């Protein structure tokens, strides 16, 4: 069994219809797949399709009116509230989507320190420097407030924070959106090296072309459902080996390929 295992996971929100009647608005339905140690699984879907909800569901940080069904397993054990409290930050870590996930009033050095304490890995100055150096961040970045960081630095800072507790699973939520090609490559290489070090990496993204060189498998979502899971080496040529017609359409629609938009809308 994979390190992270999703079994028929669905996420929805309770909405009020009028004053008394509630109904559930489903956004993710019936997701089943796994992410093993040493691999990057890229979860591809349209923006606004609820991909981030899956990450939030795994970490238990959905709004209160959210409803999660199905089973999530970490290393074989069901991830319920008590288990989640034990593994959050320690065995699994999140790389969040935007700068707004860092406390605007606190210097980055302090936030890394807090993350270390929360993960049960208190950091001294030397360890912090070493961790930051691994992601190309210097003294100035450490002492900066989040708003003073560039987009790429902020993402690297968040990867550094996520890896503080040496987790087995890293979930990266759109870690490359808004970055230029060079910074994107840097971030994805960092995630690749985490996978190569034996961690399971779930990479949530909307950009197939960017992640193909780095991912092992690609989970393609369409309208809140999982359409297919394809090994990334099948995205080649005209996509003849791809099992799912939708994945093939997505592949062909890329600018560097035939660029035919036939049926690729999610």
């Amino acid at each position, binding site marked *: 069994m994979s390190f992270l295992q999703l079994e028929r996971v669905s996420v929805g929100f309770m909405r009020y219809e009028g004053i008394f009647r509630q109904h559930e608005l489903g956004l993710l339905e019936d997701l089943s797949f796994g992410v093993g140690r040493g691999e990057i699984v890229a979860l591809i879907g349209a923006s606004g399709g609820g991909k981030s909800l899956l990450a939030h569901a795994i970490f238990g940080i959905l709004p209160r009116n959210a409803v999660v069904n199905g089973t999530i397993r970490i290393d074989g054990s069901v991830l319920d509230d008590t288990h989640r409290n034990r593994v959050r930050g320690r065995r699994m870590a*999140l790389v969040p989507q935007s700068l707004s996930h860092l406390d605007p009033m606190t210097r980055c050095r302090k936030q890394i320190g*807090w993350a270390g304490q929360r993960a049960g890995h208190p950091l001294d100055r030397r360890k912090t420097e070493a961790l930051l150096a691994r992601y190309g961040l210097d003294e100035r970045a450490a002492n900066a*407030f989040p*708003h003073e960081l560039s987009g790429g630095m902020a993402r690297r800072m968040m990867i550094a924070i996520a890896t503080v507790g040496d987790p087995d699973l890293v979930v990266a939520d759109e870690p490359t959106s808004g970055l230029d090609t060079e910074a994107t490559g840097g971030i994805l290489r960092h995630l690749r090296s985490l996978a190569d070090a034996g961690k399971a990496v779930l990479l949530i993204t909307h950009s197939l072309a960017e992640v193909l060189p780095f991912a092992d498998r690609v989970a393609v979502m369409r309208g809140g459902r999982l359409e297919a899971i394809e090994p990334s080496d099948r995205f080649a040529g005209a996509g003849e080996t791809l099992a799912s017609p939708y994945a093939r359409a997505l592949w062909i629609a890329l600018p560097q390929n035939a660029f035919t938009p036939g049926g690729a809308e999610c």
Partner: protein
Amino acid sequence: MSSHWPILVATRIVRLAFLLAAVAVVAFTLAKLSPVDPVNAYLGPAIAKVGPEQRELIARKWGLDQPATVQFGKWFHNVLSGDLGTSRTFNAPVADVLAKRVQASLPLMGMAWLLSGILGFTLGVVAGARPDTWTDRIIRTYAYVLASTPTFWLAIVLLVVFSVGLSLTPVCCAAPIGVLPEDVTLLERLHHLILPLIALTVLGVAQITLHTRAKMVEIMQSDFALYARAQGASLADVAVRHGARNAALPAITVLFASLGELFGGSILTEQVFAYPGLGQAAVQAGISGDVPLLLAVALCLTLVVSVGNTIADILYRVVDPRIGAVHDLEARP
């Protein structure tokens, strides 16, 4: 950023000077428009024994026969040279009356201000950390009830319960009656301070609590609070490190901005407890048409409230790194 401070402080001082002048004009006009006749108020019951000629004599001696603009001009000139005039009610220089009253009011208002800040902030953080739980509901109800309680009524209830019913606290004043001021002990002073302090503190708590709670609820839903949870932080950890730190600034602002209300509350409280402070002096000055004292109290209050607001503004710049940064960028050529 440091190069902006002199300019900032200078603009503030100029603005404050204009504000004080405007308040003086308005307060003087209002005092002149008031139906209270200073001579009548001064004479009190003796009014029956005084003829119109004598009254005119008093009025002339006080300069009341001159046009209002001349009166104001004289007063303004004197104030600029440091003379606040003489209080007819207390038969002493206004500066002396003010000094004595501030001495009595400062411990009361200062402590009420601090306590309501600390208490209100703590309650707000606790309530806002877990909205819609029972703790939150109890604190919120408590704050709503307090916010809608008139100060004077609360003061009377406290008097009835603790002073009259339980005889735990004194009924009035800042010191035991019949004891010379130099013989009053610190303990006796504190004993007389308790009830007014409670009444005044309770007034301030509600506002700070509700403001802090609202801010906390917002922060606990923010991305960085959620991310802290995802890092494995406990609720208390998020509430203290992210919630309280980020909610402190708005709370401090409200606290400084509420100085005016605190003074308003102190007028009512001091009146009910017959506490000889600044608020009570203001009431007496108003009733007896003691314009110099009234104006001095108004200016004093304006100064305190305005300086309080300025401190809140400056704190924002010092504490929030983003405001300073924006300032920096704007200043660059």
